[in-house]
């Protein structure tokens, strides 16, 4: 049940993740991509700065993938989170999971993204079309 997580400061290539998790025992592979959306709560967004507490973030990502691997019995999991400035449409996070069966392949990817949002120390500062910028505080809003 190999798993690997990393923080990267270059564009994420989903094809690489899919290749890395490929496994002859797998009957299903899921790929989740998080991308920078062009609006937030009605405000036009031009891009997002991602910052991380790098050492802890990598540690937490690894813990989450290990949990998912044991909980769902995955063949292989790979996750990458990007930091730095990303324009609208760019990939901020990618999760690839291979499994014998489709249901746990989907569930494992859902678990990983939910836990990333819950506990990995990464922050984003949205840049708006009017030139202003603001740190996003999910605890201050209702998650969509």
């Amino acid at each position: 049940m190999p798993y690997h997580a990393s923080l990267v400061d270059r564009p994420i290539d989903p094809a690489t993740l899919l290749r890395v998790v490929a496994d002859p025992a797998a009957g299903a592979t899921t790929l989740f991509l998080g991308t920078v959306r062009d609006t937030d709560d009605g405000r036009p967004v031009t891009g997002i700065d991602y910052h991380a507490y790098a050492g802890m973030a990598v540690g937490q990502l690894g813990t989450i993938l290990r949990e998912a691997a044991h909980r769902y019995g995955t063949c292989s999991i790979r996750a990458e989170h990007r930091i730095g400035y990303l324009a609208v449409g760019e990939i901020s996070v990618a999760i690839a999971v291979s499994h014998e069966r489709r249901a746990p392949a989907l569930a494992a990817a859902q678990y990983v993204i939910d836990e990333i949002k819950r506990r990995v120390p990464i922050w984003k500062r949205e840049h708006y079309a009017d030139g202003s910028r603001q740190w996003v505080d999910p605890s201050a809003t209702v998650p969509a």
Partner: protein
Amino acid sequence: MWRSDVHFGVATTTVTVLLFASYADAFGGPQVEVPLAPQSTVADLVTRLRDGHPAELPPRPLVAVNQEYAMYDQVIEPGDEVALIPPVAGG
């Protein structure tokens, strides 16, 4: 990072607290030094941090010690890596 001093006969230790994102903006830099008595807990640290910046912190901000989320009754030991964690927003 820690430094030990004796002021007026009372031993204090200075702990460097790492700051990120909105907290770094609020405190004006990527870290802040906080004098603490030996055997101080995470709760003690948060109280000291709140002294100067009451409006900047939520009621119970997350604190990490040695890159793991810490309970408020955890004692901060010399050499511990301490960080104040704003609400996370990854993904």
